[in-house]
């Protein structure tokens, strides 16, 4: 049995925030290469080239990819053999929060988090309900897995929910996605991963869109109909010509990702949440063998 050591979790939470801000996952780097290889517009080629160069400069200078430290999100998955008792759940959350704060003070990082009404910044990257910490359970993995996502505001500010009705059918879902990509233009720092949530309740639908937007490139919706929809939408959004940074070109999106949940007979909700080209994430596995980092 693995007991959760808050000290280890705190260090991991700190390390993950900094790693996520500095090293782009390999699937996103691959996504850039794919887009650059098929881009036909000269301006867009240029913009993609600058983005690719920035990834190398960030690694060479050990610097952040983007100045936006984002809203810190920690997704915790508790796997097999983890012993949770007493106050361990609360201690786990407290340790993550502490690690997030330490990354901010010790690196140092810009704290992008303010009180929503007073706009006061505590310079800790923490506040009411932030960092966002989500805890899930899965039997397929060993130990504890923590994924960290610094979600940039340029993409997060372009989030939409539509409570369509059944009579509007799947056409409403497709039309909504196209219109969201048009409305976002260059504000989301395209090329993006367009996350689409379909079904569920209003809040679940939005949450699914976030899961879709932050899923690694090359992964597919587990539901066959959902996977078909993401293929169709991926092709269609790249016909629009919004292009990298909204300056025109083929590379509007790396991909459209879809996540589904069952919904009510009277409902047809669709949500869109986007991930910008700085599609940052980092993860760590804490097992009895120790800590290992990945994406």
């Amino acid at each position, binding site marked *: 049995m693995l007991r959760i050591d808050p000290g280890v979790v705190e260090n991991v939470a700190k390390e993950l925030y900094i790693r996520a801000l500095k090293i782009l996952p390999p699937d996103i780097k691959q996504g850039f290469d794919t887009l650059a290889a098929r881009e036909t517009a000269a301006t867009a080629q240029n913009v993609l080239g600058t983005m690719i160069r920035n990834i190398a400069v960030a690694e060479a200078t050990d610097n952040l990819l983007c100045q936006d430290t984002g809203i810190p999100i920690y997704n915790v998955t508790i796997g097999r053999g983890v012993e949770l008792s007493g106050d361990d759940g609360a201690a786990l959350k407290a340790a993550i929060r502490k690690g997030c704060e330490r990354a901010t003070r010790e690196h140092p990082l810009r704290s992008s988090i303010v009180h929503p009404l007073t706009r006061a910044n505590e310079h800790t990257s923490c506040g009411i309900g932030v960092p966002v910490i989500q805890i899930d359970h899965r039997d397929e993995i060993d130990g504890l897995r923590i994924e960290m996502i610094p979600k940039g505001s340029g993409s997060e500010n372009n989030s939409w929910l539509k409570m369509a009705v059944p009579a509007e059918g799947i056409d409403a879902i497709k039309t909504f996605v196209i219109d969201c990509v048009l409305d976002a*233009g260059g504000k989301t720092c395209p090329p993006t991963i367009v996350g689409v949530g379909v079904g569920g309740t209003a809040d679940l639908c939005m949450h699914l869109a976030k899961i879709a937007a932050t899923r690694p490139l090359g992964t597919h919706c587990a539901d066959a109909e959902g996977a078909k929809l993401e293929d169709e939408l991926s092709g*269609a959004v790249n016909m629009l010509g919004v292009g990298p940074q909204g300056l025109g070109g083929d590379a509007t999106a790396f991909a459209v990702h879809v996540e589904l949940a069952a919904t009510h007979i009277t409902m047809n909700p669709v949500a869109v949440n986007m991930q910008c080209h700085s599609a940052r994430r980092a993860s760590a596995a804490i097992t009895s063998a120790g800590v290992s980092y990945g994406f």
Partner: protein
Amino acid sequence: MAHYDLSTPITEAQTRALRIDDTVTLNGPLFGIRDATQIAMFDRGRATRFDLAGHAVIHTAPNVKKVDVSPANPTGYAPVCIGTTTSSRMERFTRPLLERCGVRIVIGKGGLGVASLAAFGEIGGAYLAIVGGTAALETTWIEAIEDVDLDDLNPESLWRFRVRGFGPLRVAMDSHGGSLYTSVDADARGKRAAALAALGVNARPAR
């Protein structure tokens, strides 16, 4: 499509020479501003001791670290990572920046709207697009943080950076009514029906 190597401050004539799709590299002082900076200046009437006339501003809020005051770091802040934020949130501040402060160049990402474009035309200004999300690269173009004002708003203080070889940046909105954002948006909306048809949807008007 010309390239300009400009040293700030610049004149109205230099600004009006810029046309969309030209490229610009900047040298000299560059001022960093953001939402809270401009809310303070234009909604709450806070004055700055900086003279922005003829200068360039960039929509940013940097990552900095506190260091000892020295000739290299006169403010006691050293740059960590300096990048650019989405401009459209600050659309309503373009006109006062130009009219009241004499700013000539706004640098940002994602573009500004029709009110800003009108102000650029009437007063003489231009918007230069930087590639958003490439802050590691952008930081290498910044020589120093020379000064800072309104620092109670940190990180949304009014920053004065000194830059060298800052760019190339693309002129995306000019003083002659040209805007790459307007033209790309119109083109993209023109392709909406075809994209929907490819999805098997009969296009209805946009929401």
